[in-house]
């Protein structure tokens, strides 16, 4: 048993995959000599050298496209976006080139690329730097999207992403880089499949469906609710696409009440898709309407008080749970 940070877990995943497969390389802004804007690539330049740990100019479209081209001929690029807010500059490469290539070429060219970096609102970064991009990218056929919330999931999902033969986005939680958790020792191979949710806490009265930064929030709220005799089950999606529909339905069939807490915006957000699938498949199992807690539908304000008002928080989540539990 050992506890490491989310940042260290990602670092181990990178190092292990670089070690395992000579086709893997890491490229992005400040990944080499600066050791990563969030220090995720600490020590990798020294260990693997500048051929495989590559600093780029500030040209997201350019280096994302370079990665896609390199993947077409069998390399396995890991492209770091300093934040997924900047991936929007490379939207054409991530949305038009990476996932379309396999179809457009009639199956001749798959694109085994990993795009990774912090995603979602952090703290007072303002509207341009606070994007939660999971719902944009999950809507694109050909992409896979995962959102680890714990160090263990971060390591296991990133390693799986690098080995996947399709473009995979690993959306890391910016606020969780320093959070700690138990992870298997480095000599034990840790791979967590894409498309598998995990029940992070068992419960019987209500299912709280969450991912990324909303997982620790949901766990905190579950502890609080227990004091009020409400037993909440916490389902961490871990992957947005593929979505583990089975795990969602199993939990809801048990509790009959659902709150989805997501870090993106409400309109066409991840929760909308989850909600649709629940009512379509097990309408009769529901004892109450499904509630969603998400960001408010506004660009992110800088002001700290307003930012807090935009984000999901414990009060909003508790209120939603009480509404679906009719208490």
């Amino acid at each position, binding site marked *: 048993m050992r506890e490491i940070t989310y940042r260290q877990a990602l670092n181990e995943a990178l190092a292990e995959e670089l070690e395992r497969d000579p086709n893997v*390389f890491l490229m992005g802004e400040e990944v080499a000599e600066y050791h990563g804007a969030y220090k995720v690539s600490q020590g990798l330049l020294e260990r693997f050298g500048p*051929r495989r740990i590559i600093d*780029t*100019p500030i*040209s997201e*479209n*350019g*280096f*994302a*496209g*370079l*990665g*896609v*081209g*390199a*993947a*077409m*001929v*069998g*390399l396995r*690029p890991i492209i770091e976006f300093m934040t997924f807010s900047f991936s929007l500059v490379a939207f*054409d*490469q991530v949305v*038009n*080139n990476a996932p379309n*290539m*396999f*179809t*457009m*070429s*009639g*199956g*001749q*060219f*798959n694109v*085994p690329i990993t795009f990774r970096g912090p995603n979602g609102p952090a703290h007072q970064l303002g509207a341009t730097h606070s994007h939660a991009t999971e719902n944009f990218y999950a809507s694109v*056929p*050909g992409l*896979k999207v995962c959102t680890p919330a714990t160090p263990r999931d971060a390591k296991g999902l990133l390693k799986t992403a690098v080995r*996947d*033969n*399709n473009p995979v986005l690993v959306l890391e939680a910016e606020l969780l880089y320093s959070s700690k958790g138990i992870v298997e020792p480095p000599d034990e191979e840790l791979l967590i499949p894409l*498309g598998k949710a995990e029940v992070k806490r068992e419960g019987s009265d209500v299912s709280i469906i969450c991912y990324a930064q909303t997982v620790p929030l949901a766990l905190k709220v579950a502890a609080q609710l227990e004091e009020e005799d409400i037993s909440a089950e916490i389902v961490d999606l871990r992957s947005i*696409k*593929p*979505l583990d529909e089975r795990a969602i339905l199993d939990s809801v069939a048990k509790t009959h009440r659902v709150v989805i807490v997501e870090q993106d915006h409400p309109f066409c957000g991840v929760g909308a898709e989850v909600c649709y699938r629940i009512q379509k498949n097990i309408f009769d199992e529901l004892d109450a309407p499904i509630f969603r807690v998400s960001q408010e539908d506004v660009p992110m304000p800088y002001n700290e008080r307003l930012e807090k008002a935009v984000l999901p928080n414990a009060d909003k989540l508790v209120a939603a749970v009480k509404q679906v539990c009719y208490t």
Partner: protein
Amino acid sequence: MTAMQPAEQRDEVEMLSLMLLIRRFEERASQQYQAQKIGGFCHLYIGQEAVVAGAVAAVRDDDYIITAYRDHAHALARGTSANACMAELFGKETGCSRGLGGSMHFFNRQNHMYGGHAIVGAHVPLAVGLAFSIKYRDEDRVTLCFFGDGAINQGSFHEALNLAALYKLPIVFICENNLFAMGTSVKRSTSLKQIVDRAEGYDIPGEIVDGMNFREVRDKVAEIVDSIRKEPHPAFLEVRTYRYRGHSMSDPASYRTKLELEKYRLDDPITRLRAQLTREGKLTNEQFDLLDKRSKEMVLASVKFAEASPQALIEKLHDFTYADGAKP
């Protein structure tokens, strides 16, 4: 096209034959488009044949090539059969991209033709990625990246040139300057007097060649590629050419004069190479007529092949979204 010959041995008569095949293919594609057998957008290469023929003649068959959406010729030049190309236009499963790509997305993995890309400028970073892999693997291949004059004002183009120069990658950026980005002339789109000067901004050596002259294109590309194989670096070639047809099938090209078109037609790349070979006693009129007849027959047969090919299966609709066949 015969496959896998070293560049220096490529026969000029065969390359003339390729240029004829491209022209006859495009003429037939135009006719089939008008007959509504071909859907979507369709951009013809007629007039520009010497560019791809000259460039491909100067490289090895295992060098990488990638281009934009005016791509039929590049696929044919890389040994993709007329049958597979026409079937792709017809959207059939026997097409070079299984009928899933269409006119703008021709691919041939086996022959190192990496597409067929329809967002202007978006494939230039991909080309740099191909070149990156060459250097990463310490190979002596070269990447040829074709694009039109319209691509040079796109951000992705600039980012890609900078990256190629920064990492010293083995790539030739080949700008097929046909004077018009759709209906906008270079004069109205580009702040430079000549396109090749774009390269200077990235410290990439650049040259201009006459794209209506097969030999000039071939010899210049060969010289550049030779230098790249000795020491990897990017290079830029502005190839001055002209398309006889509009931007796409729906474009009557009323933004230019008949006089201008006639001027270029007099400088036709096929006529010119034919004249050079005839003058040197390497080709008789009878031989030329035979080559042309063969091209026409091959293309006609490709239409029959495409028509006879079975329709794509709806049952396979989800088979080409994820490489592992996943259906999330």
